[in-house]
């Protein structure tokens, strides 16, 4: 699972809808991998306005990446573009859990696939 995806995922439990603490989900026991992908600058430019920067900074810090700028960059120079590509697109969480900060529900990640199937009473 790409870090990009975790910036959009929110807890699916019914009582967590529009609860600020339900986003972003927090990693637990995350095992990381890096998969090289071709840089797609147009894509990065397209999604950057929709990236929640404070959430991304939080996720990055939880995973041990501490060099992320504290503010969303206004202009994407070549290096910033590359760094963002590496973090958002190439860095993957292969195993571990995503935990909701509101209800505590733990979503398992196996082989990079997060399990968002919920028991019906939580939907």
């Amino acid at each position, binding site marked *: *699972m790409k870090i*990009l995806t975790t910036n*959009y995922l929110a807890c699916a439990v019914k009582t967590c809808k529009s609860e600020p603490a339900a986003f972003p989900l927090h990693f637990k026991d995350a095992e990381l991998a890096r998969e090289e992908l071709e840089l*797609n600058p147009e894509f990065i430019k*397209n999604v950057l306005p929709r990236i929640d920067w404070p959430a991304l900074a939080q996720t990055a810090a939880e995973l041990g990446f501490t060099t992320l700028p504290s503010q969303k960059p206004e202009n994407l120079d070549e290096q910033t573009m590359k760094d963002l590509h590496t973090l958002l697109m190439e860095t993957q969480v292969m195993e571990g859990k995503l935990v909701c900060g509101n209800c505590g529900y733990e979503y398992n990640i196996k082989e990079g*696939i997060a399990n*968002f199937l919920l028991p019906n009473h939580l939907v």
Partner: protein
Amino acid sequence: MSRPEDTLPPDLFYNDTEALKYTTSSRIQAIQSSMTHRCLELLSLPGPSLILDIGCGSGLSGEILDSYNHTWIGMDISPSMLGVALDRETTGDLLLADMGQGIPFRAGSFDAAVSVSAVQWLCNAETSDVTPQGRLSRFFEGLYASIKRGGKAVLQFYPKNDAQRQMITAAAVKAGFGAGMLEDDPGTKNAKLYLVLTVGSGGDLSGRDIT
């Protein structure tokens, strides 16, 4: 041939054998590919986009999305299908999830959404504590919120009958979508139905406006 929707729930129907059969059938691949191309044509995205693929299965549609330089996130309820997607080393992110439970993404996440041959499964209710209506409204409300304003979704699906077609489109409209229906090769056995949905104003409706 019986409809798979009438035999077993999708997570059970698409077991390892069926998932592989589905993915390696060249006829299914060709149909799936042409329908995904059609979805993209109807979306007419201006550039590389973030796309949600609902019922992504083994990533057959995702491969087409990749070839257009889009980035996709796929949801599917069948672990076997997702397993095949892993083996095929698709580039999209995969989520094991039930669309009838909603769309677990924050508001305005996606440029667009596509779905090929999946949403008719929403009309099945596998257990007594859920209803097709409940599943349909959770799905469409979640989908509506997860697409950015001005974004679109194109859902190709196989309704069992007119009542099901009505039930699905009515749920989409109720969730707030602008909706149009497009049918390719109507009246033939190759008929393909596309529900074209827009979020907010400014969207360009293809086909017959039904809102």
